[in-house]
């Protein structure tokens, strides 16, 4: 009898047809980069920078791949463990970022194979880069991650893009926004100079502008899909979103991403118009924060099946921001300033809610206070990660804020984005089962308090 070497995964079945098609974009990024490399085009490894650096690199003909997305991909197909083990054996502590450890393990394999992608690398692997584009947004570990890659990619420069991540009080200081924008634009100008020197070509600003126009359209459409998700029952759940987000998050400038989102919008709208829920038995509406267990997204399908839980909103950092007001972009012709305004807006837009509720930070925290009301949430699913401080340090605070200010309780189920070894789904089910009764109780409390949901 032949040995079964297939890996048992816990992928989600997803509820949307378009969500099941979205994996195409992740694979496209990887395979396009490999093809581009074969044709002699430059490849960059980029961190998620909330669009701060991506468009510039792409406008200059660089093909980007995203090691964070690659980590999620490897985890989803349950093939991250070998890379994690290599990173462990290289001396990287196992409480470092799972994305970083997956990438470091892969980079070592790449170097050991003379920079030819090893056969069998999940999704075809990451093509060898000429640039590593890092970002100071969100996470301190990311500075060191790309620096550490120098062990394996020692002739590849690292460029780190910065942006100030000011607090709620600072946001309201006079001149704060202008100073922030000036800083980001200055960072981008330096980056452009560096790229022109690296690639020995000039940035085509018109091309960059056109890409931005397309990206803003795509992000706007992604946001409109979010609006549709406020419907009861929820027409789309997190299991769908975590696939559907790939095009708007990584490829918003790609017209194909826009077309895809038109189809997503149509599918979700049809469900809303006909009162069709993503799950057939929606009893509880929960929000998820922050980075999901990519290796076990099917866990949420099981929550839906067992307890009627629809995950109606999730992961602040992956969502398209609300569209910027027209006057925000009126008369702005410098594409670098448009980029600066977009990234700044993404990070600052929830400060108004933060001030209203006297909480902080706007990002990772206040967003959920807004969404709990807009999406009629019954509960908050907190997923702390031993390996990720930024996606964890606000969780208990957010959980407490939601309970105190909006009578929305939270359950804490720890795990990891990549490392399957520290996620216990049975423990998760056990906690959620008990939590259902807590949600019932708080639903009564909200009713007594005359709240809207």
């Amino acid at each position: 009898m032949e040995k079964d070497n297939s890996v048992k995964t816990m992928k989600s079945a997803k509820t949307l047809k378009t969500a099941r098609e979205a994996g195409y974009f992740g694979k496209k990024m990887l395979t396009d980069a490999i093809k581009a490399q074969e044709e002699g085009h430059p490849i960059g490894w980029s961190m998620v920078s909330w669009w701060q650096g991506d468009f510039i690199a792409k406008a200059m003909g660089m093909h980007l791949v995203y090691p964070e997305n690659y980590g999620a991909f490897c985890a989803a197909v349950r093939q991250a463990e070998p890379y994690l083990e290599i990173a462990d054996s290289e001396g990287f502590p196992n409480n470092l970022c799972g994305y970083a450890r997956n990438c470091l393990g892969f980079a070592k394999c790449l170097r050991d194979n003379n920079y030819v992608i090893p056969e069998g690398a999940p999704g075809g692997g990451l093509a060898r880069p000429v640039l590593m584009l890092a970002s100071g947004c969100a996470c301190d570990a990311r500075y060191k991650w790309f620096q550490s890659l120098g062990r394996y990619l020692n002739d590849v420069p690292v460029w780190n893009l910065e942006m100030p991540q000011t607090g709620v009080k600072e946001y309201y200081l006079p001149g704060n926004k202008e100073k922030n924008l000036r800083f980001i634009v200055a960072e981008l100008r330096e980056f452009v100079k560096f790229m022109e020197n690296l690639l020995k070509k000039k940035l085509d600003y018109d091309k960059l502008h056109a890409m931005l126009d397309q990206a803003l359209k795509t992000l706007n459409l992604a946001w409109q899909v979010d609006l549709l998700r406020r419907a009861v029952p929820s027409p789309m759940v997190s299991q769908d979103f975590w696939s559907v987000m790939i095009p708007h998050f990584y490829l918003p400038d790609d017209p194909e991403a826009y077309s895809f989102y038109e189809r997503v919008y149509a599918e979700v709208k049809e469900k809303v118009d006909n009162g069709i829920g993503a799950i057939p038995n929606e009893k509880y509406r929960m929000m998820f924060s922050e980075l999901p267990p990519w290796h076990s997204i099917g866990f949420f399908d099981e929550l839906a099946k067992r307890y009627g839980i629809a995950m109606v909103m999730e992961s602040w950092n992956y969502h398209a921001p609300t569209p910027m007001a027209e006057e925000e972009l009126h008369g702005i012709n410098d594409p670098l300033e448009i980029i600066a305004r977009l990234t700044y807006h993404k990070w600052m837009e929830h400060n108004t809610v933060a001030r209203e509720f006297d909480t902080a930070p706007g990002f990772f925290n206040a967003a959920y206070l807004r969404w709990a009301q807009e999406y009629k949430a019954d509960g908050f699913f907190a997923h702390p990660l031993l390996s990720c401080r930024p996606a964890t340090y606000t969780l208990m605070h957010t959980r407490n804020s939601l309970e105190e200010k909006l009578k929305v309780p939270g359950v804490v189920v720890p795990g990891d984005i990549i490392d399957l070894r520290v996620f216990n789904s049975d423990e998760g089910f056990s906690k959620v089962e008990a939590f259902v009764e807590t949600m019932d109780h708080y639903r009564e409390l909200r009713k007594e308090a005359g709240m809207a949901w």
Partner: protein
Amino acid sequence: MFVAGIDIGSTITKIVISNGMEVRAAMITPTGPEHRRLAFRVMDDALASCFLSFNEVEYIVATGYGRINVPFADQQVTEITCHMRGVHCLFPEVRTIIDIGGQDSKGIKIKDGKQVDFIMNDKCAAGTGRFFEVMTDVLGVKLEEIGPMSLKSEKPASISSLCTVFAEQEVYLRLSEGASVEDILAGLHKANASRIHSMIGKLRIEREVAMTGGGAKNIGLVKAMEDRIGFPIVVPPEPLITGALGAALIAREVAARLTPDQLREKKEKRRLEAVTFFDDPKPGKERLL
């Protein structure tokens, strides 16, 4: 009306059969590996002890880690809910429950008889019965002795690690340094109380506080917890039984809402059989036990 609550914990199984608010039978037995067969035996023994037949029991609620392995139960309810209900019945003034089980520990907040929040330990034996079982092996004392022995300590040993494996090493080290068993036990209780307190503290502890589970039978741990939180803790007369008691209370409430026909229909579908995972009897084959 007779009802039953059965709590299959990771190490101990408990059952309560009650009639109204009167407990007619309560039994405690080690769980072992085969839940289904055990559930049958425990129910059978409990029925015999109060001279009841299975059909006289109107409704059965199973709880605990092994609750899905009680084929004759009418309903499964989480142990958190059942503990809360059991403690609330015994001590209506309690607002915070600390339950120290064999493999896990948890905190439950109660308000007006409702479970408003809870927290459980994650992936670590520290603060659970298993931690103390391992330490008793190392120290060569019986589990039931460690509480009273620790109270004799005058200078608790310093135990900094709460990983069961590393704490075991630390105990060996303290022994090699000449620390007394009493001092080591006191140190272990203190360290665990600190760990449990930091977990339960996330719920914002409110008085009164009750302690349940096997850990509540350990006077050393109860005292260490009282020292840590700064006020007395109430302990039920039999702290192991609160989950099963809560399950029986829920069974009584549910049964009271059902019509006689509904109850009869449920009972007709129920069988008290010694089914097992390992040799599931097929029709016509001889039953186990």
